[in-house]
């Protein structure tokens, strides 16, 4: 397997780090080499959060190079645009149709661009928009957006079987929300 580079972006509090954990564990359980890198600390308070996951036969650095991501998994629209140049020309951007205002917008210093979808669709790489909030709600909890997106991503990684993903989900989320998350995962798979 050629090294597969994933960049996961979102806003602090959206569950980017948990999603990365699920992806890494699924890859490990599928017998692949994984390196992951994430940023903790201040940015977790509502700032941009980026996590890198690299999967392959042998991986050295935990960092993905700009322009080298096979998939960008974005939990928020503007974050998808912000990090869009990390995608390969033949890569994919999967993004949630979710909008969270940056503090500059909150403070009235800037406006949230209203053509984010258009700017994204003008990119060379393939762009896939998912109404993750709607699917998460359908699964039973608005907060399961991250699992919907992980479901969508799983379709890009045929090396990892569906059972492996679900086993990892069982170990990663509290039992009382497991059903919701398994459903969210399936709905995410179906969105691709």
């Amino acid at each position, binding site marked *: 397997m050629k090294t597969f580079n994933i960049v996961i972006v979102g*806003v*602090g*509090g959206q569950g980017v780090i948990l999603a990365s*954990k699920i992806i*890494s*564990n699924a890859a*490990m359980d599928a017998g692949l*080499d*994984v*390196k*992951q*890198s*994430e*940023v*903790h*600390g*201040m*940015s*977790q*308070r*509502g*700032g*941009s959060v980026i996590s890198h996951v690299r999967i392959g036969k042998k991986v*050295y*650095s*935990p*960092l*993905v*190079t*700009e*322009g*080298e991501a096979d998939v960008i998994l974005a939990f928020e629209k*503007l*974050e998808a645009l*912000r*990090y869009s*140049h990390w995608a390969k020309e033949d890569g994919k951007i999967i993004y949630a149709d*979710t909008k*969270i*205002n*940056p*503090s*500059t*917008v*909150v*403070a*009235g210093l800037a*406006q949230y661009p209203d053509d984010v979808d258009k700017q994204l669709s003008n990119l060379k790489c393939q762009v896939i928009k998912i109404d993750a*909030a709607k699917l998460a709600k359908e699964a039973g909890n*608005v907060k399961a957006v991250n699992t919907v997106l992980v479901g969508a991503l799983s379709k890009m990684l045929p090396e990892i079987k569906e059972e492996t993903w679900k086993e990892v989900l069982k170990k990663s989320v509290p039992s009382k929300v497991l059903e919701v998350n398994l459903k969210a995962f399936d709905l995410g798979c179906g969105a691709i």
Partner: protein
Amino acid sequence: MHKEILLGNEAVALGLLEGGCNVISAYPGTPSSEVLPYANHLNKKFNLQRFVEWSVNEKSAFELAYANAIAGGNSAVIMKQVGLNVAMDPLMSAAYIGLKGAMVVVVADDPGPYSSQTEQDTRFAAMFAKLPVLDPSTPQEGREFAKKALKISNKYEIPVILRLTNRVSHGKQDIEYEEIPKINLDIKFEKNPQRWAAIPRFRYLQHIELNNKIKKLANENEYSLKKYNDKNKNLIITSGCCYSHIIDSLKYLNCEKVDVLKLDMPYPLNIEVSDIINNYENILIIEETMPVIEYQILKYRNNVDGRLTGIIPGEGELSIDKIVKIVSEYFKIKFVQFPEFNTKSKKPELCPGCPHRSSFYAIIKAFPKGIYPSDIGCYTLGLNMNAVDTCLCMGATINQASGFYHAFKSQNKEIPPIVATIGDSTFYHSGVTALINSVYNKSAFVLVVLDNGTTAMTGFQPTPESGILNSGHGNKVPLKEVIKGCGIEKIHVLNPNNINEMIECLKECWDYSVKNEKISVIIAKEPCTLLKLREKDYKFIKIKINEDKCTGCRVCSDKFQCPSLIYDEKRKKVFIDYSTCNGCGVCVQVCKFEAIEIE
């Protein structure tokens, strides 16, 4: 055999316990904070009976761990790079005096920086203290080097520094491990005042000894040379996380004409490196973030390149794209330039429902023309609200407030209201001595202790006031009594979410302080919202906007700055983002048109 994806910090914790540490202490700080909790987790999981402590600050953590090493125990102390500044005093002396058991000083650096005040390089601090330093490149190496550091420390009877960087600390990989064995150490204190309490004359002799140890260590240093081709004349020298980036960069460039020399121990430099470098014509030293290897290489050869010759940038993290660009230009390897982008990240902000927001809002309302020194923690984000004017280092806000007061007073200038803010954990860390100093020296200002009952920014470590230990319950150190003991006579404890009460109290305190030339203290006591949300009986207050009353004045969205209150440009009204609202209900008090209502 158990296999698990571990964070670099967790892998280091595993290594420390496998290496036989019986005492582990730390003060939290990004990117080091996860080492101690994982050590605590493993300690309980395998019933190891080791002592694991969250200390009040890094100096305390160091001194405690060091005493254990003097008594023949194996110690680890963990902190972030700027935390080492706080522990530098005992570190410098411990290098001279040495120890009996073993001690590893785990310090996590933050090139970037992502969550720190500086990009300082702990390898440089190691060189300054004359202590050996190991620099792992992956989580697995972090685990191995932790054990190796303990061995070296025991053999040479000196502390050894294990330097991590954010990419190792917060990198993850799969790690295999078995049950950690129990230990039985021979703890005894052998009296030897000439060593353990050495006076300057003996310190001179200890310095000679330390120099000899470092010399010996330079002879058994470890390095690995990745050779691509026996005829190669190009070499990169590196250590730590940069190694992984360099290997991937060379792969990316499809380049096999450059060899890579990786130093596990960047200081002291192994003597054999002097021979290796003579086999190469072009040498580039890539290291993060200061020229530690480069300075040492200059002893053997001066035609090398790196940070000192301007090839490597003097600041910022060395990402793969930077390394690819530098390596390709330096060794003349063709590649297609990466496109350049100017991306600004979304700035962090106080969470919806954060009680600090209420405190800051009250402060700017009470004293629109005040000076607001502040400190290190979540609440530094009060700067978005223009309620934080300074942030220097842990505990500095109190002495800075004092300094501003004396600056104006000494020149008979009108003294503007001075309101200093500090978090509860930061206050215990280094605010107490600052408060004693300011009381003693007759300063006058209002100090607001933002008491949310935890160390929120780094992951909710307990504070001395809670009395909660890793092992259960300890003793509570009550905040109000400590402040009283520092000589403060006017202390108010209130809930900052009652904004008007807080505004009145601030005004009254400042009047008192100016009139009496004394410091007054407000303890703004309200738990961190993220912790409250975890409680079963958390009461979510659902609010709504009465659009007939909303004038679009934007006070709630722009001044109070709750991320869940969003101004809609088109409709000129504010709406509530229920996906982020934590239901604190405080915003109801902020709208003077009563447009924010409880549903």
